[in-house]
């Protein structure tokens, strides 16, 4: 076991880096749930779209992948608006079943469109910025910068929610939609902006994930991210954006650190077991603390 203590810091650092992006990738889900009480079951599809935006703009036009963050965000905004008007607006008072299925259906449409337009092949690109050395541990800059940008976007969202009038309105609707309406908040506008912003952040996180991993982009890659986002959102408490970010960091570290641990224990497929561990977490948390680790 002397082995693991020497390599563990590396896995913890890379877990925190990828976890920071996981956190951003979950904030859209949890924000939309907090405000509209709707779980976007097709969440991962928007991450997939963000990845493809970066992939295509970089491959076809050699655009700097970090610049593609802006078009990815804008595409997400547009998709969010579409999602709201097509699949959510009329269903806000309908039973929960309806929005679960309509958001799911919307996600399936995006995946099938991606498959028809771009094919089912795994795609990838190569983009490098060199490495940073932290006490001898090499950290590729294409993994450091996306994590830093994700953190920056989370801070920007925090400022938006807690320092602007729109943020006050969003938080008011989260706590009490009817009370907010009585106080003159245009609740439907808040719903609309939340979905647009939530999906925009999600596609932006897809762009960051594409820069981080660079390989294996395909139409159904979103499924794994939907599931991961669920674990993280439940861990942080559904509806809490800051909880989602911290949950992201935790899940990132667990995922990264459990792979070498399972390898050392001689598991036949350590990666599979590490994913299994993450999903078992959901049941354990739902059983013991359904309000999330940070919830009250």
């Amino acid at each position, binding site marked *: 076991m002397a082995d693991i203590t020497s390599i563990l810091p590396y896995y913890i650092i890379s877990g925190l880096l990828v976890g920071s992006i996981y956190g951003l990738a979950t904030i859209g889900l949890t924000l939309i749930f907090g405000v509209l009480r709707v779980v976007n079951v097709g969440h991962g599809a928007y991450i997939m779209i963000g990845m493809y935006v970066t992939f295509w703009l970089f491959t076809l036009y050699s655009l700097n992948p970090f610049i593609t963050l802006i078009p990815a965000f804008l595409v997400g905004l547009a998709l969010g608006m579409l999602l709201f008007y097509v*699949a959510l607006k009329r*269903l806000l008072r309908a039973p929960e079943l309806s929005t679960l299925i309509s958001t799911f*259906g919307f996600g*399936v449409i995006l995946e099938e469109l991606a498959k*028809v337009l771009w094919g089912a092949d795994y795609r990838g690109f190569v983009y490098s910025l060199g490495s940073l050395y932290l006490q001898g541990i090499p950290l590729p800059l294409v993994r450091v910068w996306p994590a830093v940008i994700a953190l920056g976007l989370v801070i920007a969202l925090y400022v938006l929610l807690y320092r602007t009038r729109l943020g006050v309105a969003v938080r008011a609707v989260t706590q009490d939609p009817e009370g907010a309406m009585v106080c003159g908040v245009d609740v439907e506008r808040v719903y609309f902006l939340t979905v647009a912003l939530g999906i925009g952040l999600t596609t932006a996180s897809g762009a960051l994930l594409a820069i981080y991993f660079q390989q294996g982009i395909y139409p159904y890659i979103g499924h794994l991210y939907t599931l991961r986002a669920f674990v993280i959102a439940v861990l942080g408490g559904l509806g809490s954006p800051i909880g989602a970010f911290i949950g992201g960091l935790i899940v990132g570290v667990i995922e990264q650190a459990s792979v070498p641990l399972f390898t050392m224990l001689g598991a036949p*497929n350590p990666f599979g077991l*590490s994913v299994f561990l993450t*999903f078992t977490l*959901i*049941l354990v948390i739902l059983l013991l603390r359904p309000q999330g680790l940070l919830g009250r």
Partner: protein
Amino acid sequence: MTLSRTHILALLTLYAILLGLRILVEVVGPLGPITGQLLTLLAFYIALGQAFNIFLGMTGYVDFGYVAFMALGMYGMASGVVRAYEAGLTGYYGIVFGLIQTITLTSLLALMVGGIALRLRGAYFAIATISVNEGLRYLVEGLDIWEGSRGLIVSGPLIRLFGSEGFSLLATIISDIMVFSVALLALVISIVFLNTRIGYALKAIREDEDAARVMGVNTTMYKVLAFTTSGILGGLLGAAWSFKVASIYPPDAFNILYTIEAIILVMLGGAGTLAGPIVSGTLYGSLKYFLAGILPGFQLLVFAPILVAVIVVAPEGIVGALRVYIPATRRFIA
């Protein structure tokens, strides 16, 4: 909805026509566009809808991990057959052993997941079920259960146990009849549920769970009952289907596509209606069959927008809408 004798007779007639057609095609060959494969597909989708309807349709909870039950059924039956072959027993022991494994595994899963997750409401339940499905898949791959990601080969042992002629019968008409039986069993159970207090309890849960609980309905118990029944039927469907596949791989067996299809079938036909799965299964199965020739792989691109449209415009589905807009149909369509 009270069920009359006319309702039940109409449903059984539809089933008899389909099963009769399947046997007729087996004896005299395809009747124009109606081939054995088409009827197999219809039977499969009707059974899938009918089995899933008992949970989704009657309780209003969405189980996004329904395919896990089918996967356990496929693995349960296939590993039973393979084990019987390796132990030198006859094929019939294998099938019986497979059925026992299927029922045990699916009821264990249903009781475990249901016991934990059904204490939670809609959104949390949906989240829990998606993770259970993926978690199981990665457990099978991670611990190398049932040959893990290398795949469990079924057709070899089956051919050696039943001979190549016996195997080809088993993979076609016999497994089709098993699929029909699962559909029929699901229908009969639905009728029994609807005609007893179970049906009232489930309906009360769907309409207003808090009110039902206040009135003294043991909501968790009835939800677990519907979940387990629906899950075991899904497992049996998977077991019947396992004779048709050469080998079973985790990504195929746990493919979320089957869950998507099950949701489409229930919602398109009309959640909680008995005739819904027959209508939507026939529609979906035929479209899939004929689209496969013209536009292979496009059926979800056609059906996903339809699903969203149904939820937004007519959440009561085809059969529900018929009953609302043409009241005369209420006498014989349930």
